[in-house]
């Protein structure tokens, strides 16, 4: 039986534009978040997410229902993110290891993140500090380790699904995630140990 996304894609292939709209509606948040976690910039994440769906739109005629729709969609997303990182590395406009300090975070974004709980200034500062630390830790990972981590943690994908998206073996995903999580643990250890001691 075809998964519902595949059916929608096939309907779109046959000219039903509303099926494409449904797919965008359903997956836009995931795609924006994957890219945001990978790149670290909200506006850029949205621009790239638009590019992802534009590619889906363009590829509709050639689309073949070989695998899960999300595998194909995340593959497009991953390739776009990796290309973007390569482009940036070439241009040397930013450093991949550049920490994105909490001060650089857009006010609007920050407000959105903290709007639900009306926290104290102390809590806002702590949250800013934590977000900056996490951002720095994620940015420090090599591109493929970073993408495997994002797909596993934020999208809850299995190692097998990640291996299909990244075009590598399950063993390779296991190795990448081992190194990524060990590195993240090291980089976040100061925060984690403080937290255990009741600091946060």
């Amino acid at each position, binding site marked *: 039986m075809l998964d519902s996304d595949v059916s929608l894609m096939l309907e779109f292939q046959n000219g039903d534009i509303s099926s494409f709209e449904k797919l965008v509606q359903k997956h*836009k948040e995931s795609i924006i978040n994957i890219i945001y976690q990978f790149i670290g910039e909200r506006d850029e994440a*949205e621009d790239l997410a638009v590019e992802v769906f534009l590619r889906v739109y363009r590829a509709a005629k050639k689309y073949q229902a070989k695998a899960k729709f999300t595998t194909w969609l995340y593959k497009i997303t991953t390739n776009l993110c990796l290309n973007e990182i390569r482009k940036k590395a070439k241009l040397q406009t930013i450093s991949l290891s550049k920490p994105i300090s909490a001060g650089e975070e857009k006010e609007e974004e920050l407000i*959105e993140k903290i709007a639900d709980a009306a926290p104290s200034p102390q809590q806002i500062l702590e949250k800013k500090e934590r977000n900056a630390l996490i951002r720095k830790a994620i940015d420090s990972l090599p591109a493929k380790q970073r993408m495997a981590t994002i797909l596993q943690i934020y999208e809850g994908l299995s190692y097998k699904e990640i291996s299909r998206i990244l075009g590598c073996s399950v063993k390779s995903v*296991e190795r990448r995630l*081992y190194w990524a999580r060990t590195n993240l643990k090291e980089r976040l250890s100061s925060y984690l140990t403080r937290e255990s001691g009741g600091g946060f």
Partner: protein
Amino acid sequence: MKCKGIRRKLVAYLDGELEEKQKLSIKEHLTKCGECKKEADLLNKSFYLLKDQQRLKPSQGFEASLWERIYSLEKRQLLPQAIFGRLVHLALPAAVAAALIIGVLVGSSVEKIIPSQTVKLKEERYLTSIGLDSFQDLPTGSLPEIYFNLASAGEVENG
């Protein structure tokens, strides 16, 4: 399994990606080894710290941006056809012009290769070969000669 081997498998264990046998072996080890248990706890905490990050909501203009891009894509896809249509109209004049240019270029290069004196010489030889170089007078007593003489005399008298 020793601690080193256990630790290599801890992430996969926490992610629920191990086979039952390996899973049980690690579970058992963690009940006995404090260091590995500590490592597993830290890995687990870091996982939830990352997972706890608030997700972004797409901006309101997201879909509008997408449809704008799709619209300009459709427009661009039409453009090559229009250009091709125009090219078809220009094809014949362009071919004629190209043929003329090629003709002039070939002609001028031929002239450079074969000097004009050689061309003249070849021309004379050709005329000789077909007998056009020697003008033969009208045969004596022939009707054309008589007509020619009469016409010439008339011209002199009139003159």
